[in-house]
């Protein structure tokens, strides 16, 4: 049986992309698989009694070393903020390429805590900072110093000791450009070094909390139980900064989605399923309920989504256990079709992620296909004709061409870069000033403009000639020729409509990171948790691939 890849017009709608969940394809999981046989070490741990100072952690294999350099600082409670306008953090981190020398650490000590206003070098790969969840951190220190383990109910509500507020890579603030390291096999997967940084930061938070507790009460203090550590992740606060990324990297976006879609297609095409695989799938579905019921949020929007998700997953489990027969041919195809008919889109995508769990042999080769050599597709094929371009627009943007951009509600918002923080923002063009400096992120509107212009041009006209008088549409002409080859490269939705939910764009990216427990704090920023339940560094050599569902 040949199952078609799902239609981009369905999958690339924002509401569907905003329903994606982590899976075996997610970057933090593929990072753990790649680095499981690397040697982990804590090279330096020079903190004072309060936990302030410097620490270095590393992963080594043969001659390659990656070192996380951590600087824990004292800040006052009123200086602590997750917002991008913050200038001080409880801790700041960088991933250094190799073993840092003393002079490197001295240099980094001056720069890393400054974050965006500091300067890094080509020897640094990623940069981040994090704030304590003060309530949780203090509770854990307090408990451990009294010889007790912390209250699990309190920990479960938050799920982490520290929350990062940005993780930078790829040349930002002087960090190494991607081209310098792209040929390294171990990082042949998107955001792998960002994942490494976050993973090592998680270990630092455990070491720091143990250290502070021990110093508070050297005689009585105990260490945080490794089982509890394992159930703690690293939080992350994320705002609109992430949203333009998925518009600005079309071939990369395509490759992420295409791998997910290819995995689903291959699983649906499996005629007979081994009983151990169907049992593993069922077990993951059952266990995953805990991830949903322990998902805390105050967002009405998310509470509603979780409610429908939980309702539909229970309905799915009932169907799976009481009606469905895995002995039938093509069982995952039947399950998928049932889901599309009977459940909400969040549930469909949730189960699609779970379907990948038993099939490492399908997923693992796809992980290597998730990067993109974007430069290759930058040139516009200017010897093609307007007729070709019209054909692409009509075929690949059919839903977008139906949007009426004469209606105010369809172009109410605009994206801009804030002068204060150089971060992307979204505003109402009829109420705020600045729309004359709009960023090129209104792809649907510009594609529609392009389409109208092409209809007025001679069909045999070469694109090179068309561009002479239509330079304002050059950016979307380029995109049209990209989508011709990369069907999932474009969000098939209107990113400037009155009804846009920007966190859908963030959720898409975060799901590929492997984030859990999306907690929207508004329609423009949210908190998440990463690596909750993940093996600790000492357990990496032999860990359970389904750890996500066993925390």
């Amino acid at each position: 049986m040949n199952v078609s890849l799902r239609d981009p017009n369905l999958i690339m709608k924002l509401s569907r992309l905003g329903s994606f969940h982590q899976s075996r394809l997610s970057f933090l999981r593929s990072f753990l698989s790649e680095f499981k046989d690397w040697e982990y070490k804590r090279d330096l741990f020079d903190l004072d009694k309060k936990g302030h100072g410097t620490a270095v952690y590393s992963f080594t294999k043969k001659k390659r070393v990656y070192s996380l350099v951590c600087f824990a600082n004292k800040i006052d409670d009123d200086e602590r903020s997750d917002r991008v306008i913050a200038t001080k953090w409880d801790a700041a981190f960088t991933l250094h390429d190799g073993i840092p020398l003393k002079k490197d650490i001295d240099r980094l000590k001056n720069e890393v805590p400054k974050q965006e206003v500091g300067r890094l070098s080509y020897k640094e790969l990623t940069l981040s900072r994090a704030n304590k969840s003060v309530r949780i951190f203090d509770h854990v220190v307090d408990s451990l110093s009294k010889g007790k383990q912390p209250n699990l109910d309190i920990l479960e509500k938050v799920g982490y000791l520290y929350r990062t507020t940005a993780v930078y890579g790829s040349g930002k603030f002087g960090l190494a450009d991607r081209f310098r390291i792209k040929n390294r096999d171990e990082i042949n997967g998107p955001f792998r070094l960002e994942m490494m940084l976050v993973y090592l930061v998680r270990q630092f938070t455990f070491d720091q909390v143990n250290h502070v507790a021990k110093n508070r009460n050297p005689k009585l203090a105990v260490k945080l139980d490794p089982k509890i550590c394992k159930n703690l992740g690293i939080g992350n606060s994320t705002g609109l900064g992430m949203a333009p990324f998925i518009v600005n990297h079309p071939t990369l976006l395509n490759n992420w989605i295409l791998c997910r879609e290819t995995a689903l297609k291959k699983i649906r095409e499996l005629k007979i399923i081994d009983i151990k695989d169907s049992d593993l799938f069922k077990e993951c579905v059952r266990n995953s309920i805990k991830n949903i019921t322990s998902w805390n949020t105050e967002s009405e929007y998310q509470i509603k989504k979780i409610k429908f998700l939980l309702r539909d997953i229970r309905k799915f489990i009932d169907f799976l256990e009481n009606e469905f027969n895995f002995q039938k041919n093509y069982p995952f195809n039947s399950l998928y079709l049932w889901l599309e008919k009977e459940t909400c889109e969040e549930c469909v995508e949730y189960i699609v992620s779970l379907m990948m769990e038993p099939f490492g042999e399908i997923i693992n080769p796809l992980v290597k296909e998730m990067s993109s050599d974007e430069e290759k597709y930058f040139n516009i094929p200017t010897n093609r004709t307007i007729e070709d371009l019209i054909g692409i627009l009509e075929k690949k943007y059919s839903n977008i061409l139906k949007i009426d951009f004469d209606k105010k509600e369809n172009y109410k918002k605009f994206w801009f870069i804030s002068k204060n923080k150089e971060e992307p923002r979204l505003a109402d063009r009829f109420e705020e000033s600045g729309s004359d400096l709009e960023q090129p992120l209104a792809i649907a509107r510009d594609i529609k403009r392009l389409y109208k212009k092409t209809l007025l041009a001679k069909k045999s006209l070469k694109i090179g000639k068309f561009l002479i008088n239509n330079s304002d549409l050059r950016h979307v002409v380029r995109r049209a020729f990209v989508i011709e080859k990369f069907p999932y490269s474009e969000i098939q939705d209107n990113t400037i409509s009155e009804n846009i939910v920007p966190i859908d764009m963030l959720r898409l990216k975060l799901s590929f990171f492997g984030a859990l427990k999306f907690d929207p704090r508004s329609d423009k920023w949210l908190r998440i948790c990463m690596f909750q339940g993940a093996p600790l560094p000492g357990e990496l050599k032999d860990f359970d691939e389904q750890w996500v569902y066993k925390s």
Partner: protein
Amino acid sequence: MKSLSEIETTSKRASRAVGFSWGIAEEIAKGVRLLELFGFPGIKILNQYYKLINKKNFENLSVIKKNNKLNKQSICPINLGVRILDQVTTIEKLKKITFYKIAFPILLLPFLSRSSDIIGKKILLKFEKNTFLLNFNVNISTNLSVKKFPVLAKKVEITFLENKDNFTEKEWKALYKLSENTFVEETESLKQGAAGAGLTDND
């Protein structure tokens, strides 16, 4: 040191700010990145050009011919670069094209470099006593000192070089002969057995 990613992002934004469309700004940014990667002062020259761009008129060229002599103003290197890039599969047939008065000619280089990659031919750029060889977007070689980048090229010739060897047949044969010293002379027994098929491979 600024990363190439920072160079590209800032060049794109600055280019948009001086009035280029986003699509052209993307092209300029890729170009400045390329210049800096190849060791040319892209940021410096772009800055010099943008300081003048709104004070002085520069000519824009739509269609490129064999001989391109415009009015009094000098030609915008970015507009010209984009035109060449967009029309290169057509204009390469002209083999050699001539322009007069191109402002900040260094800014033309990345467009020619990418054009060289698109058509699969080396491109030679000459103005005054300066020459640049654009090699399939892999590198740019020049006789120009890195300290002396002119703000105006009076007469510019662009030649699309045919793909041919840089060496004589005699030079090739001499080297090939040397390479033969790594081969083993086949005995009768090797002829029979070493290739696997024996002496007859017809069926």
